[in-house]
């Protein structure tokens, strides 16, 4: 039995272990990154989805920004008021209430109402439609294609394709804005949750072309604009748009609209 070999082996392994232990211990202390405990607390309160709706890189990015004072405490759209209040407690400031927003798809041209130029079979991705002749099978070049790029983008399963167009579930939507960015036709807009009147069309075509492509599209007749008591509705480029700062929800525009494209219910 070669005792020397055993001793050398034990020394080398033991020595390596001890050396590495010291090494890591020392450098662990020297390279310690100071973390503000408030940041940890805020991170714990935030929903943790890393959806990016706040405009920062994930929840940890927002926590860091709030602690540095760059972001207000009510920046998280997903958490909403309750989370803002908790963050306010941690930071020692009061949180102002915010308006709850939801996403809204500005297209009503589903399978029954909208015309198709041709039948399409192939990759089902709205962004890929840019490579397809005519920008997609739908006659209306501004309409929702219904292939679900927004559905894939939504982290909360709040968007679904119903009858060929995207529809947002208001209760599930957290207004993080991912669907807005995902839609290649920019059809989705964030509107106040309690908005009673919404224009469900984005077509800039003239009235005749719109009617050929879809049975309910906005024809730009301007009846809504003329009749709105608050001046909240404006028609530009043959499409009506409601300014929710001015809208009182009286519903006059919806009544006057000949195509009934402005929704009534909230």
């Amino acid at each position, binding site marked *: 039995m070669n005792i020397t*070999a055993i001793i*050398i*082996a034990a020394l*080398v*392994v033991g020595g*390596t*272990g001890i050396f*590495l232990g010291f*090494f*890591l211990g020392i*450098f*662990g202390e020297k*390279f*310690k*990154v100071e973390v503000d405990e408030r940041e940890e607390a805020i991170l714990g309160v935030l929903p943790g989805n890393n959806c990016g709706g706040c405009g920062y*890189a994930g929840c940890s990015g927002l926590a860091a920004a709030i602690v540095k004072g760059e972001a207000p405490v009510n920046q998280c759209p997903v958490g909403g008021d309750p989370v803002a209040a908790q963050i306010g407690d941690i930071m020692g400031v009061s949180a102002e209430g915010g308006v709850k927003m939801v996403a809204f798809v500005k297209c009503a041209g589903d399978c029954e109402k909208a015309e198709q130029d041709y039948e399409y079979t192939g*990759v*089902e*991705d709205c962004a890929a439609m840019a490579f397809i002749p005519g920008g997609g099978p739908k006659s209306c070049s501004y309409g929702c294609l219904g292939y679900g790029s927004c559905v894939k983008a939504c982290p909360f399963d709040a968007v679904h394709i119903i009858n060929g167009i995207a529809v947002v579930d208001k209760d599930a939507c957290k207004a993080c804005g991912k669907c807005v960015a995902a839609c290649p036709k920019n059809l989705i807009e964030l509107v106040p949750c309690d908005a009673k009147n919404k224009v469900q069309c984005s077509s800039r075509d003239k009235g005749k072309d719109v009617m050929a492509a879809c049975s309910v599209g906005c024809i730009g007749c301007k009846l809504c604009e003329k009749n709105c008591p608050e001046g909240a509705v404006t028609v530009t480029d043959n499409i009506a748009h409601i300014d929710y700062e001015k809208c009182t929800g009286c519903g006059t525009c919806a009544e006057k609209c000949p195509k009934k494209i402005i929704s009534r219910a909230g």
Partner: protein
Amino acid sequence: MKELILTAIGAAIVNNVVLSQFLGICPFLGVSKKVDTAAGMGGAVIFVTTLAAFVTGIIYKFVLFPADIPYLKTIVFIVVIAALVQFVEMFLKKFMHSLYESLGVYLPLITTNCAVLGVALNSVTYGYDILTTTVYGFSTAVGFFIAIVIMAGLREKIEYNDVPKTFQGSAIVLVTAGLMSIAFFGFSGVI
């Protein structure tokens, strides 16, 4: 020089670490869903493997071999690799925060990656000197990077395909890996 280049090409492509040697299958299948994460993982593997190959080469040459205890290489290598990865993580977190954000999450996963330990052990088996070991480590990791990025690209496209329900998930990925492996067989006559 010529041997170095041959070693490099052999390690990266001909005997690709994932597709021929089956080392590093775990992250290859797990982290290859999107091209960015795959590229991040590949980058981290390149970083760690090159460093680990260098350090283990030195340790073997100056500690294990002279002390006549080459049989302890498994234990010493794995402990050194684990410590090295922890150190690199600390270092990046403190000094290169942006790099830490992109690569840092993958670093601890690489500790038990068969590929890193495999590189270290192979270098000893083949009797490479320190420079060749480092080049071998680097090119093996580049081979891993190539494989994982190609796989991620393919997987992103497979998402749109009509995969039969039984094969959805890991099964179709493995079939893809098998086809990639056959493709890489074509390189076997290169050197």
